[in-house]
């Protein structure tokens, strides 16, 4: 079963608001994760300008030797991306599901300030449950 290394959510200005790693392979300390987040934000923005195709919305998938990086950008500019083993399937569905969880448990929470780091218990619990289920059966959404 292909593995997920880590999950990131970055706000529209490129700041990291949520980071979760799974397993020792993807573990990163706080500074590194912040650096990756802002790096990805810039690369995503630059790719929109560099693209030879008109109307490009940014990078969806980055494939490297040791990992794949799938990215989903919402209409508001919030980016959800996951770093996983090469060849992992259904990551786009996972990202879309994560977006649903974000709109439910983060945006409907009166104690959450917009663009701030996410500290919502319910969001983290449901996300762990989704990842667990993903390990057992592929998300067929």
């Amino acid at each position, binding site marked *: 079963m292909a593995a997920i290394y880590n999950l990131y959510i970055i706000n529209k200005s490129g700041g990291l608001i949520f980071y979760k790693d799974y397993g020792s392979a993807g573990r990163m300390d706080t500074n590194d994760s912040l650096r990756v987040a802002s790096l990805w934000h810039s690369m995503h923005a630059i790719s929109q300008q560099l693209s030879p195709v008109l109307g490009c919305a940014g990078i969806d998938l980055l494939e490297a030797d040791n990992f794949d990086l799938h990215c989903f950008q919402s209409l508001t500019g919030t980016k959800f991306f996951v770093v996983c083993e090469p060849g992992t399937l259904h990551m786009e569905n996972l990202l879309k599901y994560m977006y649903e969880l974000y709109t*439910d448990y983060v945006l409907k929470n*009166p*104690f959450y300030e917009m663009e701030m780091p996410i*500290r919502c218990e319910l969001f983290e619990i449901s996300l762990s449950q989704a990842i667990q289920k993903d390990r057992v059966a592929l998300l067929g959404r």
Partner: protein
Amino acid sequence: MIGASKIKQYSNVLEKPLSKGKQEVSLSAFAFLFSELVQYNQTQVDNIAELERRLEDAGYAVGARCLELLCHREKCVMFMPFWLSQGNRRETRLLGILSFVHSTVWKVLFGKVADSLEKGTEHEDEYMISEKELLVNRFISIPKDMGTFNCGAFVAGIVRGVLDSAGFPAVVTAHFVPMEGQQRPRTTILIKFAEEVLRREARLG
């Protein structure tokens, strides 16, 4: 125009009959509205106790109106001209009003009856309505630094409004009760009736 039906136009909104009401309302819409209510009240207060009191007061207004509406609607279902002798009677007994809140009010507001209704073991005047997870709390995660604050205070206010308007003054509060083996605590609405209610109940036998 062919086929145009005559809809009676009311010149004054007060003359329009009360409708049956929508059976379903968008949960997301309510969640956002409730979230805004909490955030607005947060800006107006200095401490958590004050916030809880404000939410309860907001609920109280809802509860009072809810009782009036439910009494009116239940009467109208009959559609009989002799509704003076038919239809629902006003609840005068403690258990009657409690099961009214536990079943009818909960069904209308949250789409299901409450999980359980219990009598308190320590005090004579305490009753508890429990729910695995209150609908208003469904998407809310309380930050650690807010301690025991519960947005269910709004629901506690609704219950207080219903009881007060029905003639059973009480102090109603919402509490989280941690459950073994469950990640999320259960919510309990604790109802503590006033002295006069218990005296009247004892007199009625």
